[in-house]
């Protein structure tokens, strides 16, 4: 496979995973902003998913419609869903002969949907949940089409490598920002705070089933980092990343493979052999930052050994 094609598939996939993360986060935070909880602020969302400065974030912190517009349809915000989808589509466009026609059409439709002026208008006037749901479903259509139609070749491996690397980074980010927002105070027991955090990463129901004794910050960390069955956990993401990377093993390029395989294996082991206690002992922030760094290093190595074409 052409290096350029692998690169484009990888980024198409990362952008789509990011889109899904942003949309879910917005949807739940919107619900939370309508709930009767103390001091709701959009700041953490803006910190995780955009480059807006402190002043801008403070200004928007309590203006729900402004945040939605900024995060979804703003053309100036390079991390708005509109711009991310545009980039995902540009990547897909340049590899149309490597993804199925259905997948391309699905992404292309997503692009036309999000650029529709009416959608922007409705986002300002109508029920935002309905609008976000339209977009989330368009994303799910992408994931489903990918699963049902794409051949399980090298391209599929790169798509999944991008997806799980992005997801790992995202989960670490979300956890870190949410905890920093309450100064890593593990004694905080505000039930709604944890509930909305878990809802935003689709982990609420699993939490209820796993921990029957109410909300505990430690358990939230445990599930988000260490639960192997939780598809948004860092452990799961690292595992999948490894699984799909292993498919690239072949006759040629063995040295590069071994190098990156070692890096990913190390991340996986690092997470697998952590406990909540060991994480807290070295500090949650330090721990999550370390994981994020390691994941970024994998991205850089992939770029160097597999995607370099210019």
């Amino acid at each position: 496979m052409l290096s350029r094609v692998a690169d484009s598939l990888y980024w198409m996939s990362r952008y789509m995973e990011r889109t899904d993360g942003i949309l879910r986060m917005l949807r739940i935070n919107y619900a939370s902003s309508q709930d009767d909880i103390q001091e709701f602020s959009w700041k953490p969302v803006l910190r995780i998913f955009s480059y807006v400065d402190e002043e801008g974030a403070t200004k928007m912190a309590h203006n729900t419609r402004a945040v939605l517009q900024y995060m979804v349809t703003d053309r100036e915000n390079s991390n708005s869903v509109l711009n991310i989808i545009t980039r995902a589509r540009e990547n897909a466009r340049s590899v149309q002969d490597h993804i199925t026609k259905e997948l391309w059409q699905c992404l292309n439709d997503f692009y036309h949907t999000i650029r529709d002026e009416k959608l922007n208008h409705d986002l300002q006037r109508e029920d935002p949940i309905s609008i976000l749901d339209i977009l989330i479903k368009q994303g799910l259509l992408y994931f489903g089409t990918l699963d049902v139609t794409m051949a399980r070749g090298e391209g599929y491996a790169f798509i999944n490598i991008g997806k799980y690397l992005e997801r790992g980074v995202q989960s670490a980010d979300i956890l870190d920002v949410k905890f920093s927002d309450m100064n890593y105070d593990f004694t905080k027991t505000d039930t709604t705070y944890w509930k909305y955090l878990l809802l935003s990463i689709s982990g609420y129901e699993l939490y209820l089933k796993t921990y029957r004794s109410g909300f505990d910050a430690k358990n939230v960390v445990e599930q988000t980092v260490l639960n192997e069955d939780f598809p948004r956990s860092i452990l799961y993401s690292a595992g999948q990343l490894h699984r799909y990377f292993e498919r690239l093993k072949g006759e040629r390029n063995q040295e590069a493979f071994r190098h990156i395989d070692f890096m990913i294996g190390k991340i996986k082991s690092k997470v697998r052999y952590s406990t909540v206690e060991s994480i807290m002992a070295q500090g949650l922030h330090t721990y999550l930052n370390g994981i994020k760094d390691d994941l970024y290093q994998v991205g850089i190595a992939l770029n160097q050994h597999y995607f370099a074409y210019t």
Partner: protein
Amino acid sequence: MHTSELLNSYTVDPGTWDEMYSDLAVRGQYKGVVDFMQQMSIEELNKKEELAKRLFMSQGITFTVYSSGEGIEKIFPFDIIPRIITAAEWKYIEEGIRQRLKALNLFLKDVYTNQFILKDGIVPVEMVYSCPHYLREMHGFHVPHDLYVHIAGIDLIRDHDGTFYILEDNLRTPSGVSYMLENREITKRLFPDLLPGNNVRSVTEYPNILHRNLVSLSPRQTAHPTVVVLTPGIYNSAYFEHTTLARLMGVELVEGRDLVIDNHRVYMKTTAGLQQVDVIYRRVDDEFLDPLVFNPDSMLGVAGIMSAYRKGNVAIVNAVGNGVADDKAIYTYVPAMIRYYLNEEPILKNVPTYQLGHADEREHVFASMQKMVIKKTNESGGYGMLMGHTASDEEISRYKMEILKDPRQYIAQPIINLSSAPCYMNGKLKPRRIDLRPYALCGPDGIQIVPGGLTRVALREGSLVVNSSQGGGSKDTWVLAG
């Protein structure tokens, strides 16, 4: 309103060949479609038109127009009523094109090797050497199977009495074939059962034939040669076509930056290292192909590719330097080439053409500018063209000044009326002028022409210019089986 009324409102322009009507009776080949349309209401037809637009948009069969830093997706206008060609007409066109391509290919071989045709004075030497597309880099080099033209898109038009004329031979990187394929797909969606009911020949073989031909050109004796399509990239207006062809043939779509030359061989950069490339169907113009040989500023090509080509380590399709054969001034000599190389009379006629480089012909043209269309010999896409009957006196005199600066660069042709075909416009059928571009594929086993092509249509009322850059659209093109 019912569609029978819609047909009644159709009036053929005087002095024009209409593809659907002759003496106000529907021609046999259109009966099936006309009957079908008459069963539909305006609302239904409008819905079909909407559906067509949506399908083009959703499949990304679009080109991007950049304004204020933002890309806007546009679709190439499509008219829902097919253009229909009878079996007899097709047989004639097919034979004519085959004959013409045979001669043009021989001309290219000759002009880059022995130059018999120049020595015998059939084509003036200065005509060839003054052509910017005549490339000395190609001289004395034998291309595989002596094939220069692998893919041709020859433009045909019809005069008031229905005679077909060759308007242009496109032998470099003719585009539009994806529209031939996609327009057919759209018709299948718009009008269920209409195609099989009318005995329309299929066009789907095109990518298979092309792929077979490309594989057969591989210089390396290997079971699975690496064939690629070389595109200038996603910002090219024909990018959709490049990706469609790569997909339909199951080959890699590469950009110049994906390729690298080592020891006069072409390689592509893959995730598993370098992989040798055997055949390149390039959609990059000669000028940009190799910065070491041609335009040194080109970012679209591959440095050193010409040396690999001349060493015979890679096949390039179409051959480099074909522009000398589809030059608008050389065009005049194609009938002479057919007589010279094949000893046959040309089947398809040329449009009478005046060389403005010749003083007497220029004077004749200058005296009757209103009846002429003037074209630059090395431009395409309807750029740099003057239509005498619509131009103002001022435009004409300004254009004359331009011509006098370098008359070799211009030709003139009497304005041909172009046949008309019905188009669906705002609930009515209107005659609009059309041309025809069939696509011919030449391989070691001969010339094959897929029964169909691209019908371009001038959507503006009264316009004779069908180029997409000048407000043209397209139609699905049916060739009927017997």
